[in-house]
């Protein structure tokens, strides 16, 4: 049986969504001339500033283009659903945001994205634009701790992009922006749990099967299987399981500060996210870690998948400064 979706044509879904986004946010966003899949900040790129280009597949809205704006990313290259954009729209983003100080590519660590962004970086170099890359690898579930570089980038993108975008907006050098981006990635830890499948607009078929009383722990944001299948627990039990894994890596000390993101994978409602956040706060209080800021809602989704992720951003003074730096994007504002 096909899933229900409000679409016109599965093959046109991404482009029609982009038309709607540009219609909704003309003050923040435009597409590059002749490249409708390259979304550029109206106010962001400027001479002497490192340009921040993010991107990846569609289906994760508001990731990626919701984070395009002054103080955050300068452009996002948009791919098909769950598929990396090809090199051309990435290159057009790089050209549009280059202010002569270099460009930083940031995106989740997936083989397809790496190949396409690397090809775009080679093409940018031929146009005398230096493009460097920082991959996000915040998904604790996707590889053991000693193989952090193999992990996926998921909802923690939010904090990592935010820190890098602030560094760019403060006119730091490409070296400094890159250093801060890598540090932000090293300080970001996400765990997710999925309760039901999502379906691609082209197939409208659930992309995996899961029992009525089951959850998948560590499910990827494209419906890739996670680390284990378990019985669906209570909100507190699920949150505890996620936090135990995150704490084991982050090694928080009494007096530390974190920022929290409780993110819906698509159809899990705010009610459930806030129930989870209640538990996150209790657990942080218990170990004497203070919560500097909290975001709860849809920040990195997986189409209509039910489920949620918890991300902790382990702050130090520098990262807190970057997090608090103002930004003004189509779907997110801070400071």
């Amino acid at each position: 049986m096909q899933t229900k979706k409000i679409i016109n044509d599965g093959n046109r879904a991404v482009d029609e969504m982009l038309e709607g986004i540009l219609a909704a946010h003309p003050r923040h966003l435009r597409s590059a001339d002749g490249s409708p899949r390259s979304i550029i900040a109206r106010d962001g790129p400027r001479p002497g500033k490192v340009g921040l280009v993010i991107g990846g597949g569609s289906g994760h809205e508001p990731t990626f283009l919701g984070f395009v704006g002054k103080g955050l990313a300068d452009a996002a290259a948009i791919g098909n659903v769950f598929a990396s954009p090809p090199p051309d729209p990435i290159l057009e983003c790089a050209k549009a945001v280059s202010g002569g100080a270099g460009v930083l590519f940031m995106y989740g660590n997936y083989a397809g994205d790496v190949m396409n962004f690397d090809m775009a970086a080679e093409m940018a170099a031929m146009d005398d634009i230096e493009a460097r890359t920082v991959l996000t690898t915040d998904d604790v579930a996707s590889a053991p701790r000693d193989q952090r570089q193999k992990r996926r980038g998921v909802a923690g993108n939010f904090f990592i992009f935010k820190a890098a975008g602030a560094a760019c907006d403060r006119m730091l050098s490409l070296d400094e922006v890159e250093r801060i981006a890598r540090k932000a990635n090293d300080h970001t830890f996400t765990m997710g749990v999925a309760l039901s499948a999502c379906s691609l607009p082209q197939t409208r078929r659930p992309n995996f099967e899961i029992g009525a009383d089951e959850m998948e722990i560590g499910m990827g944001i494209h419906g890739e299987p996670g680390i284990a299948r378990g019985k669906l627990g209570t909100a507190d039990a699920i949150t505890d399981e996620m936090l135990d894994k995150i704490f084991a890596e982050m090694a928080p000390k009494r007096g530390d500060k974190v920022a929290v993101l409780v993110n819906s994978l698509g159809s899990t409602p705010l009610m459930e996210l806030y129930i989870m956040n209640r538990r996150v706060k209790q657990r942080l209080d218990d170990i004497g870690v203070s919560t500097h800021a909290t975001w709860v809602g849809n920040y990195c989704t997986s189409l209509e998948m039910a489920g949620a992720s918890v991300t902790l951003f382990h702050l130090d003074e520098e990262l807190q400064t970057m997090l608090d730096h103002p930004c003004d994007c189509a779907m997110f504002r801070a400071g």
Partner: protein
Amino acid sequence: MTIDTADLKRMFDTIAVAIEADKDRLCQLDGVIGDADHGIAMALGFNAVRDALASLDLAATEPTALLNTAAKSFLNAVGASSGPLYATAFMRGGAAVKGKATLADADFIALFQAMAQGIKDRGKAEPGEKTMVDAWQPAAEAAAAASAAGKTLAQCLEAALAAAERGAEATKDMIAAKGRSSRLGERSLGHIDPGGASAVTVIGAIRKSLS
């Protein structure tokens, strides 16, 4: 046989039809260990190639230019992993026959080997890592061996297809080390790699159109 650009266009058309027919199966295979879109991406790519080649003046186009057109149209329609991998395959295939107006059997074997090498280089994958390289590399080796033994192109491609089928089937017993399914570890065991499965479909269509 002598292969001209009309034959190469027919080859791509045949691949597009075969992949379109196989789209749902490829998505289902990908759903088990990946994100369920491999059939969509492959169909999108080869349909874009078919459309791009339809607008070429074949009489005025050399094989290398045709393959570069195929590469660019595939890449820009798809992105994803299959985009760079197949685009690199076509570009390397084209580079292997640069300057030739038509292709002799040995030229096509060289093109086919360059495609496999291009996929391997772009994906930085080795055999045994549960990727399309597990189908493409043995297929290229089998075609080259058959060619060296003096077989016809049809026989070479028959050998390539048989080797690709064996290679793809063998991915069931492999733990993924590259691509999205690599995060699954042992849970990827028992499932055929969708990229290997689609490689068999592509190579099967090549054999069909050139035999």
